[in-house]
Every structure is written in structure tokens, then in C-alpha cells.
């Protein structure tokens, strides 16, 4: 809402500077900014058109000769409304304007248009930043001083107010005046609503029927005959333009003016086009068609409220009038509508038809029905003043759903309970009265409060408490810390686990990535060698773009494409992970949102740095990360061959805990890597954090440190190459004196037979009860070797 400060001063005296005014309004909840209309009009002056000639090379362009007060300038102009003698806004070269086509700020340069030099421009409202109108040039009042800067003539300081959805009353200049009154302690001066009536009683000339009172609680109307349609006076046009509305004619301008003044939208009908002399307010029939003022044929449904004359529709209630009852230059009688329409109904219709107007914006926020008569009388008075004619006796006021203004009980104890501070009777009554509330002080520090008729947001006691807090000022509320009982606390193991996993992986050298949860099917499928999706992802109804139409079902695609884009400038090693949710569709329920951690490791070459301690990553690099991570969480994991579609067969494993799969590790399938333009090997791990949570336990005890010395034996075994490390250690672990087994070499090659390999282990023997003798250890070692030979065909390497 744009509120010209000059206009605001019609209703209240303001001592504050515009900046201070904006500040105090902002602090009390009415976020305001100061805009100077015309602050950027450097180089724009008032000129007069003295001659119009055809353009030699273009039919649609004309050459206008402009008297600038200090000389004549010829400019090329395409506007249809050029008239000799009109005062206009003339921009000379170098002026700051808004480009009429792009809407961007620009500086006017000399131009040759179709072969004719043009030194300047006759401006439209849009080029001056006054409205979106770029149809024709702005025509100024005939008394505009020739040659003077436009800013001196037209400029105004405007409060640009960001109105919150609960305060439709602030979509009016008077509503803002009441806010200013409460803050500054000044009184509001309300406009004069009186006018003289003549002619027949209105009831004899118009009847009004409301069929759907739920959508139309109140309909008020007046009738003015014998008006003369014409231009509005300059002051009125200027105020409307400052509010961003284009003047049309004196009748429509008055309805708009009063809408900005009171916040009540009005509509004017050409009374002679309402042949039945009757207004019927009813729901549209499903599929009913109607041509609106903008000449668009619109299809309506049963939730849309229509204004009809009993036979044909003349307007879509509260949204837009019809072409068939519009005010024209020949109109002589006006039926003026000031009605209240249901907020939800207007919201529905305006969104359904994609027709958002100043009127619908006010109705959908829920304005009070009390406003209709005030605004109606004000508008009738102004029309009589500006367009002449005479008003019929009385007004029609159909009000089937009368909404009484509620009186609310306000208790000092409640003020203190919510704000933490109490106020005196004078403060409470004074503050509320200054906002237009009626306040009765009762004994026991209670008040009976009635909200002013223009406020629709005051429904319960706490609404009054907010009024007190915001006007007295939040800076005057004390500052205390929470006291009272300590709130119920339950450990959140999942969040703790996620935090531990994140920090551990960062400690292992991984960089954390967060990618968008919204993606597309193609991207998701790219993570699989078959390039197909096996799970149908959750789809959006109204996606911004096809790229972000689905919720992801894996983290792999996002991470691989992050790796892909980083490879444009990184060589490696790259270790990245994401710990976030994926979304799994469920029947008739919200999707499941499991927390997944997925990591990628990429290091095709040895690091080029002097300590040379990193090797290219391989399967065991990623396995080691998962083993250490799980071990830090006290989880014992097994690994088993797997067939994950993102990973290369034979180079991947499932991660099992107590026989249950919690994730996978392995080398990314070259087909998948290629799909992301990655030609080198990439290793991936993926763990389900929710599954992990089931097994990750607090440490329960510890192993006593034995005081007896240990004995070390190294053995190198020759085995069939099919025998696994795990088979060997499973056997050795059965011997209780073996405290630790460490694999320190894996060899296959010339030095062993074909089809064989050698595994070398260091075994550490230790007893908790006594010092082991060599003899004792050798005996156990012999037993171990015998077992290994029997079960796996192992022999000692020579």
C-alpha cells in the first residue's frame, strides 16, 4: 500500500519527519519505507506540444514539436494520445527513466529513429516509474508551469507499507492515520460524509436481493442521476497516481479514491444498463460465461459470486465488473455499490480466475461489513461534488448477516501473564482509545473493550494485549530468562548418531556436501548401471521445473554429479559425503524419510606431494573407512558379496550387522561413472543411519589389561587362491590364547605355485593368568597349523 504523506495529513497532524514516521510505524508492526515519487526525475521538465507532423518513414510514428520553455525540440513519438496544446513530461537526453519495454532503469540517450533524429522523449507513466502503464503519454494539467522540473509539480513523499495479511484496515489512508494517532497522540479527523438528497426514494428505483448471504453478508447502494462524466480534477488524479492507479474518469476515480481512503472497494454501474432496476447477488451456475471489463470471456463455477440484474450477470462480485454495465462517456445515472463479500470466497475466485485486483486484495483479507455505508456516503458526496447530478433519497442497505461488534473482556492479570509486565489503567485505556477502541474500566483492573468498526483482526483477549504491547513498544517490555521447571528431556539418539557420523567422516578427511532433495527421474536413474529406476519417486504437483519435479530416492546421483563438476578443477584425492534423507513413497501416507550417509572416494593417482604417503584408492580404502567408522560406533560388521546396481560386480560388498544389511561398499560401476563423465575409478559407501541406530550401542564394558607379557609369532601360509582371509582368521580366533591377528602380507606370483597365494600373519599370544612359555606357545601354534591344514589345506611357506 502506497500512502502519500500529503494525503495522510488530511486526517492527522504529523510533526515527525517522513523517516521518523516510517520508523515508528515499522516498530509497531506496520513495516514502512519512504519513497519519493519523482526522486529520480532528474532532467524531466514540463513541456507543451506545439505541432505534430507525420514521420517520413513510418506510419505509426509521429514527430512532435515540444516547447520546453526555453526552446523547441522535435522528438519521435509512437503514443496514440498526442494532442496539440497538451502539457506533457519531457525528458531531455541524460534523464533517468524506466525503460518502457524492459522495466529496467536507464539513461536517455540521443537516438535516430527510422532516420529521424530524436533529442528527448515525451514520457509515459511507466517511464516515470509512476505505474505499469505504457499505453500512452502522461498528460498533465493545463496549468502545469511550462519549463519547470516535473518533480516540483508532481512529486510527493509516499509511505510504502508492507501490509500483513491480518490488517486490511491498513490498506487505507484513514487506517494508517489511526496508527499514527496511537503512536503520536494526535487526533484523527474523519471526512465529511454528508450530502443533500433529492428526487424519489431509492427503494422505489432499485431493489436488491441477496440469495447467497454466506458469500455476501452486506450490500449497500446509492443512486445518483444526471451526472456528467469527465476528467477528475488534478489533485484527485495525482493522489491516485501516487497510489499507482491510472485515472479514468471522475466516477471510477472516486470509487478508487474512496477505496484507498477507507479500504472499502466500491463499484459503479451504469444504472440505465441495469434494465430490471434490480440487483440479484447469487452464485454462478457451473460453467456460466461472462465477459469482464478487460474484454476476456471467463468461465465461472458454483463457488463464484455474481452480481446480476436478475437476468444477466453484470459483475463478478468483488473481483471485476462486466463490460455490459460499464461507465462510459454517455453514462448519466450511477448505481454505486458498496458491499461486503466473504473473504475466503473472494480469495478462491481471484486465485481461480488469476484476477488479483486492489479490490480482491482487500476483500480476501476480511474487511468489516460496517465499512460499506461509510464508504458509500463518502463516495456519493464526492461524485455529487465532481460530477454533479442528484442523489436519490436514502440508500439501500441489505444486511442479512449482521455482524455485531464484539465486546471483549480484558484483564490486567492476563496482560501480565502474557507480557510479563503490567500497565496502569491510564496506559491501557489511553492506548486502546487512541487506536479507536471503546474502553470501559471495570473494578478489579478489568476492562470491557470494543474494537473500532474498521478493525477485523481483534477477536480474542490476546489480540488486545498485542495492541498494547506494540503501541507501548516492545522496548518497554522487560527482559527475563526462562525460569520454572526444567522441561521434559529425552535423548535423541538419531541426531546424536548423525552428528557422530558427520564428525568422524570429517575427521577421516571427507568434505560434507548437501545437495537438493528435489531432482528428476533421469538424474536418479543415472546412478544405476541399467539406467532404470526400480522405485517410483514422490512427484510434485506444481514443480518449478522438470529438473526439480521429484524427491530423490538416493543420494548417489547428487554426489556423483557433485564429483563430476568438481573434477573440472580438482585432481584428487577427493573424499566427499552427504548425510541426508531420501524419500520412499508409501501408500496413503507420508513418505518414509530414512537418513542415509553416502560417500565417494576418488584418487586415481598417487598424491603429488613430498611425503608420498597416499596410495591410489581401492576397494580396501572404502572398506577401511566403513570399518573404522563402525568400530568408532561400537558396531561389529561383516561383509558379504553383493549385487548392487551402482557398483561393479565382484568389487562390492554388503555391510551386515548381526546378519542384517545396513549398507553397501564397492567400486562404482564404470557404466555409472561414465554416465557422469568420470573415467577413473570411484569408490562408494552407503549406510542406512536408521538401521545403524538399531545396532550402535553405548560401550558396555572394557577388557582388562593383562600384566603378563605377550609372545609374538609370524607365520606365512600358502593357500589355494580361493580361500579367504576370513576363513583363516575364523579358525585362528577359536584359539583363546591368540589375542590378536594382523595380516601383514598378501602375495601371489612367481614365488608360490600357480593357483596358490600366500597370506602372512602376525599372531600375538597372551594369557590373562600367567606368563606364557615358548614351549606352550609353540604347542598351540602347531595345533593352529594343523587345523588350518586340515580345514583349508594350508601349508607353511618355506
Amino acid at each position: 500500500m502506497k500512502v502519500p504523506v500529503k494525503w495522510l495529513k488530511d486526517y492527522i497532524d504529523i510533526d515527525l519527519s517522513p523517516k521518523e514516521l516510517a520508523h515508528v510505524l515499522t516498530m509497531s508492526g506496520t513495516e514502512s519505507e519512504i519513497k519519493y515519487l519523482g526522486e529520480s526525475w532528474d532532467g524531466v521538465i514540463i513541456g507543451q506540444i506545439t505541432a505534430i507532423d507525420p514521420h517520413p518513414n513510418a506510419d505509426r510514428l509521429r514527430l512532435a514539436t515540444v516547447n520546453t520553455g526555453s526552446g523547441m525540440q522535435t522528438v519521435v513519438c509512437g503514443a496514440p494520445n498526442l494532442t496539440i496544446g497538451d502539457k506533457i513530461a519531457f525528458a531531455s537526453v541524460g534523464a533517468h527513466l524506466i525503460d518502457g519495454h524492459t522495466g529496467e532503469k536507464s539513461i536517455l540517450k540521443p537516438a535516430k529513429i527510422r532516420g529521424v533524429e530524436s533529442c528527448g522523449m515525451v514520457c509515459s507513466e511507466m517511464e516515470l516509474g509512476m505505474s505499469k502503464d505504457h499505453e500512452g503519454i502522461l498528460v498533465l494539467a493545463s496549468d502545469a508551469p511550462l519549463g519547470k522540473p516535473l518533480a516540483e509539480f508532481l512529486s510527493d513523499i509516499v509511505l510504502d507499507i508492507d501490509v500483513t495479511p491480518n490488517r486490511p484496515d491498513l490498506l487505507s489512508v484513514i487506517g494508517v492515520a489511526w496508527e499514527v494517532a496511537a503512536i503520536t497522540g494526535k487526533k484523527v479527523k474523519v471526512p465529511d460524509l454528508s450530502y443533500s438528497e433529492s428526487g424519489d426514494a431509492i427503494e422505489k428505483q432499485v431493489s436488491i436481493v441477496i440469495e447467497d448471504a454466506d458469500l455476501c453478508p452486506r450490500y449497500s447502494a446509492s443512486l445518483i442521476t444526471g451526472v456528467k462524466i469527465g476528467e477528475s480534477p488534478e489533485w484527485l488524479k495525482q493522489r491516485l497516481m501516487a497510489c499507482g492507479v491510472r485515472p479514468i474518469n471522475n466516477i471510477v476515480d472516486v470509487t478508487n479514491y474512496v477505496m484507498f481512503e477507507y479500504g472499502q472497494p466500491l463499484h459503479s454501474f451504469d444504472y440505465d444498463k441495469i434494465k430490471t432496476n434490480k440487483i440479484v447477488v447469487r452464485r454462478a451456475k457451473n460453467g456460466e460465461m461472462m465477459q469482464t471489463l478487460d474484454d476476456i470471456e471467463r468461465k465461472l463455477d458454483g463457488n463464484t459470486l455474481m452480481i446480476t440484474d436478475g437476468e444477466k450477470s453484470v459483475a463478478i462480485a468483488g473481483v471485476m465488473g462486466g463490460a455490459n454495465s460499464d461507465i462510459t462517456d454517455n453514462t448519466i445515472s450511477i448505481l454505486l455499490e458498496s458491499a461486503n463479500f466473504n473473504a475466503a470466497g473472494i480469495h478462491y475466485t481471484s486465485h481461480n480466475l488469476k484476477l488479483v485486483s486492489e479490490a480482491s486484495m482487500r476483500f480476501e483479507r476480511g474487511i468489516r461489513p460496517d465499512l460499506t455505508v461509510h464508504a458509500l456516503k463518502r463516495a456519493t458526496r464526492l461524485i455529487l461534488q465532481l460530477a454533479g447530478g442528484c442523489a436519490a433519497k436514502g440508500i439501500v442497505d441489505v444486511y442479512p448477516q449482521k455482524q455485531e461488534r464484539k465486546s471483549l473482556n480484558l484483564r490486567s492479570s492476563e496482560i501480565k501473564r502474557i507480557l510479563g509486565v503490567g500497565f496502569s489503567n491510564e496506559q491501557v485505556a489511553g492506548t486502546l482509545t487512541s487506536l479507536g477502541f471503546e474502553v470501559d474500566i471495570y473494578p478489579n483492573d478489568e476492562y470491557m473493550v470494543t474494537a473500532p468498526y474498521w478493525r477485523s483482526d481483534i477477536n480474542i483477549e490476546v489480540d488486545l494485549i498485542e495492541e498494547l504491547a506494540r503501541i507501548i513498544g516492545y522496548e518497554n517490555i522487560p527482559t527475563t530468562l526462562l525460569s520454572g521447571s526444567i522441561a521434559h528431556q529425552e535423548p535423541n539418539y538419531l541426531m546424536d548418531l548423525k552428528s557422530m557420523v558427520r564428525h568422524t567422516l570429517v575427521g577421516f578427511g571427507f568434505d560434507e556436501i548437501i545437495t537438493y532433495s528435489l531432482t528428476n527421474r533421469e538424474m536418479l536413474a543415472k546412478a544405476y548401471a541399467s539406467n532404470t529406476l526400480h522405485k517410483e519417486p514422490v512427484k510434485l504437483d506444481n514443480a518449478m521445473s522438470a529438473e526439480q519435479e521429484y524427491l530423490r530416492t538416493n543420494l548417489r546421483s547428487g554426489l556423483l554429479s557433485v564429483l563430476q563438476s568438481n573434477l573440472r578443477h580438482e585432481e584428487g584425492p577427493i573424499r566427499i559425503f552427504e548425510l541426508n534423507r531420501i524419500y520412499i513413497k508409501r501408500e496413503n501416507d507420508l513418505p518414509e524419510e530414512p537418513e542415509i550417509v553416502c560417500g565417494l572416494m576418488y584418487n586415481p593417482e598417487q598424491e603429488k606431494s613430498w611425503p608420498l604417503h597416499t596410495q591410489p584408492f581401492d576397494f580396501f580404502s572404502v572398506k577401511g573407512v566403513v570399518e573404522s567408522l563402525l568400530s568408532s560406533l561400537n558396531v561389529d560388521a561383516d561383509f558379504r558379496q553383493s549385487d548392487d546396481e551402482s557398483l561393479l560386480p565382484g568389487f562390492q560388498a554388503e555391510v551386515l550387522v548381526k546378519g542384517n544389511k545396513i549398507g553397501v561398499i564397492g567400486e562404482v560401476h564404470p557404466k555409472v561413472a561414465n554416465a557422469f563423465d568420470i573415467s577413473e575409478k570411484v569408490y562408494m559407501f552407503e549406510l542406512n543411519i536408521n538401521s545403524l541406530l538399531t545396532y550402535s550401542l553405548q560401550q558396555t564394558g572394557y577388557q582388562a589389561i593383562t600384566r603378563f607379557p605377550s609372545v609374538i609369532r609370524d607365520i606365512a601360509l600358502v593357500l589355494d587362491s580361493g580361500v579367504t582371509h576370513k576363513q583363516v582368521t575364523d579358525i585362528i580366533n577359536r584359539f583363546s590364547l591368540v589375542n590378536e591377528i594382523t595380516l601383514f602380507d598378501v602375495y601371489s606370483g612367481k614365488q608360490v605355485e600357480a593357483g596358490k597365494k600366500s597370506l602372512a600373519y602376525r599372531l600375538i599370544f597372551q594369557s590373562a593368568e600367567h606368563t606364557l612359555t615358548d614351549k606352550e606357545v609353540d604347542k598351540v601354534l602347531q595345533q593352529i597349523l594343523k587345523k588350518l591344514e586340515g580345514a583349508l589345506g594350508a601349508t607353511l611357506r618355506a
Partner: protein
Amino acid sequence: MSILEQLEEIKTQALCELDAIDDNKKLDLWRVQYMGKKSRLNEVLRGLAALSIEEKKTVGATANQLKLELEAVLKEKELSLGDMFISAKGEDAIDISLPGRKPPLGHLHPISQVIDEMCRIFVSMGFQAVEGPEVEWDYYNFDMLNIPKEHPARDNMQTLWVDYENEKGERPMLLRTHTSPMQVRVMEKIKPPLRIVVPGKVYRYEAIDATHIPMFTQIEGLAVDKGITLADLKGTLYEFARRYFGSDRKARFRCDFFPFVEPGVEMSIECIVCKGAGCRLCSNSGWLEILGAGMVHPRVLEGVGIDSTVYSGFAFGMGIERIPMLRYGIDDIRLFYGGDLRFLRQF
């Protein structure tokens, strides 16, 4: 050779060798050889036990004398070697400017860091961190938060809806537009007193540009108990701002509107760049809006069966991305979710 003769020999040898020593490494060896536990001197002294008391006295005195003498020359030598202790010469020297063998260094995402830090502050004030679903029902995201259907307040939160229709032909599933639905979910389960913070992702129907993305992060807070006041809200958020932004950072509260609170509050902090003087970042106001808050609306409390005449509470919500953007002067919000390691490795 008598013991005294042996001591004499040790002395001569030691002093002679010490003379030739020109670096600390050799000096160390010398120290071990002549003054260490296994030195000849100690060996000689261990032989003392076999002597008569009279002999013990003379030999002991001589040995002690020698020990003191050796200590003195050692000290002298140390001093004379001087600088050589600090910088070795020749082939033993290392170039200490060579880079160390660094363990690989990972980086926590800046958004995770902010969430961690904020949660830590609120947890220390007795709040508990909880999380909730990102795909929600409009019941929790809107209805129960006093945002009815066909209300303009819904338009302020451009919603991404899920392609889902229930038996009644309604389409009630959406991506949550704020973390506030968790207020309702938690209050349905836990009765007051309660204090929670809820970090999480939220979604809006927004075209992507430098300041808008369809997915971003919020942190929500809620405290409900008997006797919680607007003064407590101010105090708690002041304390948060003091701990997070530093104790000299001023904070200011003003009235604002959110359908699920009454009175509504907006908190600003003194501009990080101009410290209140006014600059481009704060559009010359000197203040930066950082969070919305307010006293929980009675309708929200009653909706979950909490008696609003007995209990009261406050709630607050804050966008996470804005904080590091302000702190580090990041001017493009897309950087957080682009995965560019050149950006992420700076945090």
C-alpha cells in the same frame, strides 16, 4: 688397577674425548658413556660394596668429586656449543619449512556448522533438539497453525504440493514450508513443560536466483509452560544473540505478524557490516532482520489440547542460510548446495 687408578683413567679419557666433541649428538653419546646408568663410573661405584669402610670413604669421595667435575665440564661444553643445539649442521640438518605429513582434513558443511552451534546454545538453555518430516500434511503445516484454507497468509508461503489425492479427492500432501509443523507434532505428544529446537529443511515454490532457492534450512524453537511471557521470549532470544553474535551486538524487537503467534515479534540485530551506521547490506537501516517469533496463539495451544488459560509459550523461527551469508559476506545462496569444494573447503 686400583679403583682410584681406574677413576683417574676415566677422568683423562673423558676430558680428552670431550675436547674433540663439536656437536650435540656426540655430546649426548658422551654423556651416556661417562655419566649414564651404564657408564664405567657407575660400574666402579657399584664395586664400592666390596671395599672396607676406610677405602669406601676415600674412593667414594674421589668418585663424587669426579662426578661433579664431569657435570661441570659438560655444562661448560653445552654452553660453548651454544647455537649448535638449535640448528644442526651438515647432513643431519632438516629443512623445517618442508610441509608436514598432514592427516587428510575434511570439512563440515557450513550449514551443519551453524545448526550445530545454534543447537548447542539452545540445548544449554534447556531446549531439546528434535526433527520432523519434510513431507507434511497441510493439517500440520497450515490448519493447526491457524492458517486456514483460502487465507492470504497461505499465499505468503508459496507451497510445493505433492502429487497425491486421498479418498475424499483432496490434495493435502506438501513439502513443509517452515519447521513450525513440529510445534504441533511435539505438543500432540508431549505435555508442558517443554522446550524444543527443530532444525530442518523447508521448501518453497521459488524461482532460483542469487537470493532464492526452493530448498533451504530453518531452525524452530518452542517453549511452553505455566507463566512463560513475552519478557521471557525477549530474554531468551537476547541471550541467544549475545552468545551467537557476540556480547556487543545489539538486538531489537518489533511487532510483526505470523498467524500462529500473538503478539508477534521480529528480532533484528545491529548490522554486522556497518554496526548500525547504515550500509547497503542493511538497506541503510542499521539493522538486519534475523528471526520471527511470538507468543504461541491460544488457538494453536487449544488445537493440541493444551489449556491456554493455564499455559503459555513462545515460538521462534529463523532462516539458517542467511546467518553465514551475513557473517561471511556470501552473496549467492546457491553456493551452499552446489557442492563446489573450492567453496566448501573454506569453512
